[in-house]
């Protein structure tokens, strides 16, 4: 076969796959759309672990008036440079609080300040690539959660929204070889517990917002459940095909983008609990989540929250209403304003980092880090 023919046949194959995937995706989208109000998750067998109290697959979110409310967001920024045995990172986190007053623009406060100088953290632990990445994540989360704690202490917001998960998502298998990493991780969990308790004490709602197009948390759970739903007449058609591999390919947002309309969320369901095996005697928290569509043309957000007070259903309603109120203004972009602002404040410029890090490097007698970074690339690329 000629090269051209090979390419053509490869392209054909890929196009076919995509077409088929789209077809199946549409099948599921239409299916769930048709049952979004009739399917009752409380009827799902307990063994599937949804632990939900919502009585329909899709729930309408209430509208809320945010006048007089304080809505906060926290985000972090990080820049990391690595030498053979030396890691250095610039980290900062910024909390923003919008205080909504009647007939005026929100009053904005920053924690610890508008443009905080980043922490410069270093490690000389012998870590492999995955471990370093975990360390960097841990450092960043530590900074963010500390920032959130001080924000709650100082200004008692009605809700605090964290950019990213509300849990410290670290793969324990990756870090458990390094005592240093485990120590850092446990320290991070302690910070999370402090934040949860503080929010619990002050009745501050807490949630993490994940704009994530890759996870399949819900579709994975649903794939196990589907055989049990086939008695519903809408699902009958599914029996004609082998749907299991298909739904396992489907990502949550892929499915939900077409199922949810603006101001709708999925039923809330159990995500995880905070404690791990080794956390035995420490206070535990249940973490629930739902998907929420804040903008007509944007993918739904995953909203995760610990059950700190009230009950999962009421919490879901109040959190979703507040998140929508600060995310609904741009039909193409559904992130909360407080997160957009916090992200912009926390973001670190690569060039600033280069300058700072070069300065440190020259003090300790290294040649330029940014040069090293450039050299590290292939000699053939420019």
């Amino acid at each position, binding site marked *: 076969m000629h090269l051209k023919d090979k390419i053509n046949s490869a392209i054909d194959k890929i196009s076919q796959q995509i077409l088929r995937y789209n077809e199946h995706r549409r099948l599921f989208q239409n299916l769930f759309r048709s049952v979004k109000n009739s399917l009752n998750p409380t009827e799902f067998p307990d063994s599937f672990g949804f632990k939900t109290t919502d009585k329909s697959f899709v729930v309408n979110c209430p509208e809320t008036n945010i006048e007089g409310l304080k809505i906060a967001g926290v985000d972090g920024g990080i820049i990391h440079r690595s030498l053979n045995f030396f890691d250095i990172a610039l980290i900062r986190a910024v909390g*923003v609080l*919008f205080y909504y007053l009647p007939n005026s*623009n*929100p009053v*904005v406060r920053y924690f610890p300040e*508008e443009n905080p100088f980043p922490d410069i953290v270093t490690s000389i632990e012998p870590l492999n690539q995955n471990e370093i990445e975990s360390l960097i994540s841990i450092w960043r989360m530590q900074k963010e959660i500390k920032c959130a704690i001080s924000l709650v202490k100082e200004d008692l917001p009605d809700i605090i929204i964290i950019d990213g998960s509300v849990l410290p998502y670290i793969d324990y298998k990756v870090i458990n070889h390094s005592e240093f990493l485990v120590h850092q991780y446990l320290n991070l969990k302690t910070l999370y517990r402090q934040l949860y308790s503080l929010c619990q004490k002050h009745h501050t709602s807490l949630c993490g917002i994940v704009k994530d197009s890759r996870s399949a948390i819900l579709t994975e759970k649903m794939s196990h459940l589907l055989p049990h739903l086939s008695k519903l007449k809408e699902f009958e058609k599914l029996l004609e095909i082998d749907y299991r591999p298909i739904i396992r390919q489907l990502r949550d947002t892929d499915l939900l983008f077409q199922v949810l309309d603006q101001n709708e969320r999925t039923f809330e369901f159990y995500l995880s609990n905070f404690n791990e095996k080794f956390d035995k005697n420490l206070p535990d928290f249940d973490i629930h989540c739902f998907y929420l569509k804040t903008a007509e043309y944007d993918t739904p957000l995953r909203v995760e929250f610990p059950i700190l007070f009230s009950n999962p259903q009421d919490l879901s309603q109040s959190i979703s209403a507040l998140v929508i109120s600060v995310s*609904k*203004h*741009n*039909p*193409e*972009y559904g992130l909360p*304003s407080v997160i*957009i*602002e916090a992200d*912009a404040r926390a973001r670190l*410029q690569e*060039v*600033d980092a280069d*300058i700072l890090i070069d300065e440190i490097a020259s003090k300790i007698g290294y040649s330029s880090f940014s040069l090293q970074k450039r050299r590290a690339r292939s000699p053939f690329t420019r």
Partner: protein
Amino acid sequence: MKGKSIGTVIVAEETPNPSEFSFVLTKSEEDFRLQKGMYVTIQSEEGEIIASVLNVFKTNRYFSSPSAVKAYETSGKTLASIFPVDSWEYIIAQAKPLGIFSEIGIKRLLYPVSPGDTVYVPDTGTLSKFLGLDPENGLFLGKIAHHNLEVKVNLTRFLQKHTALLAISGAGKSYTVSIILEELLSRSQEQGRVAVILFDVHGEYKGLSDDSSEFKDKIEFFPGAFIQFATHKLTAGQFASFQPQMSAVQVRELYRILGKLYVTNTKQGKSYLIKDIIEKIENDDNINQRSKEALIGWFYTLESTQLFGQVEKPSLEDDIKAGKLLIVDLSDFTSLRKKQLIMSYFLTQLFDLRKKGKIPPTTIIVEEAHQFAPEASINMGLSRPIIETIAREGRKFFISLVLISQRPVKLSTTALSQCNTHVIMRIVNPYDLDFIGRSSEGIDRETMDSITTLGIGEAIIVGNAVNHPIFVSIRKRKTSALQTMDLEESAKAYDID
């Protein structure tokens, strides 16, 4: 020395580099009115880096994506009610380093300033020295607007190598001339005074010598009606320059004739007139008839100008005095040729007297210089050769020109190229602009671009008088206004008479 700090150097599109950097205005200094054309400074180990602000702009991340702005505004709310947009407004300036200033002088900057460097407002003393001004003895022409810095240009640097004052009509050339005159007339003996002669084409400088003028004792206003040449002072060559068709043979004959008159008249302390020359030609047997007739014809035309007499009026030797101004009023003459004749006669005499050391160092101010030294060869001005000669050689004899023109393209390039300082006011004609770009040394793109935007009374000084092009707001006059009227006044004056 540095003034207050206003900003910090940032990294932006390939800058900082040796010829440009950007800085962001410090939040607390946002009320500081940073403007294009201002000077800023950065401390370095070698001295103060002085830079000029090329551009100032604002940024705001919330308004940098048109589609996002539009999308948010579909919600019916303003962006300011959703985000803290105000706090994202940054004022950023682009600046061009001009040099490093230290005790040992000014050096070119060959390396970039550093990101993070603090940017200051320079103090006026430093700036004045950096720009090559002369705060003690200079001519006070105006101020550098944004810095409240008095522009005092050094007399030698400003005038020794000639100056051109170029701008469209109404930009304030004559006004600026009167400022220069006030300054020249105010100088003390110790500061060094020059004599000044001004050819007033429109009769607008009479007001300078009004009774109310503090300079009236230093100014001689000479009315056009009384102008007269001392015929006997004119050489054959000069007559020839009045009559370019004259052949070499004819000039030689005339030379001989004037030689005779020198012996019979001048040497005896007697002057002579054109008619005496005509008579001598008529009675001369050596000239062929054709030349005779031509010469006589030309001399009759010269005589008809009524400019040729026995004595010189005004008398240059008497009226050209250090610290004094002689205004020669040409406003009554309608014939350009006549005006050129006058210019030619007096400039030739001036140059001669100056070479002989009979008059002090002199500055000659020529309004409408393009009429007296036109570039176009078809309309070769009678006075162009002497203006070009003085432009080329005057420097050695401390006789300097200030050429004023609203059409630089039409001005002799030879003369203009010898003017080492240009005072440029508003110019809009693209040909003139282009011409100035090519003929003004050291003028850069940014400076060029701002020429069209200059207001009345605003000028750019480039060249020998200053180390860098500077923007000057020409100061107010001390003397009464120039004798100019606007249309309404002029119409009333005519009607009521």
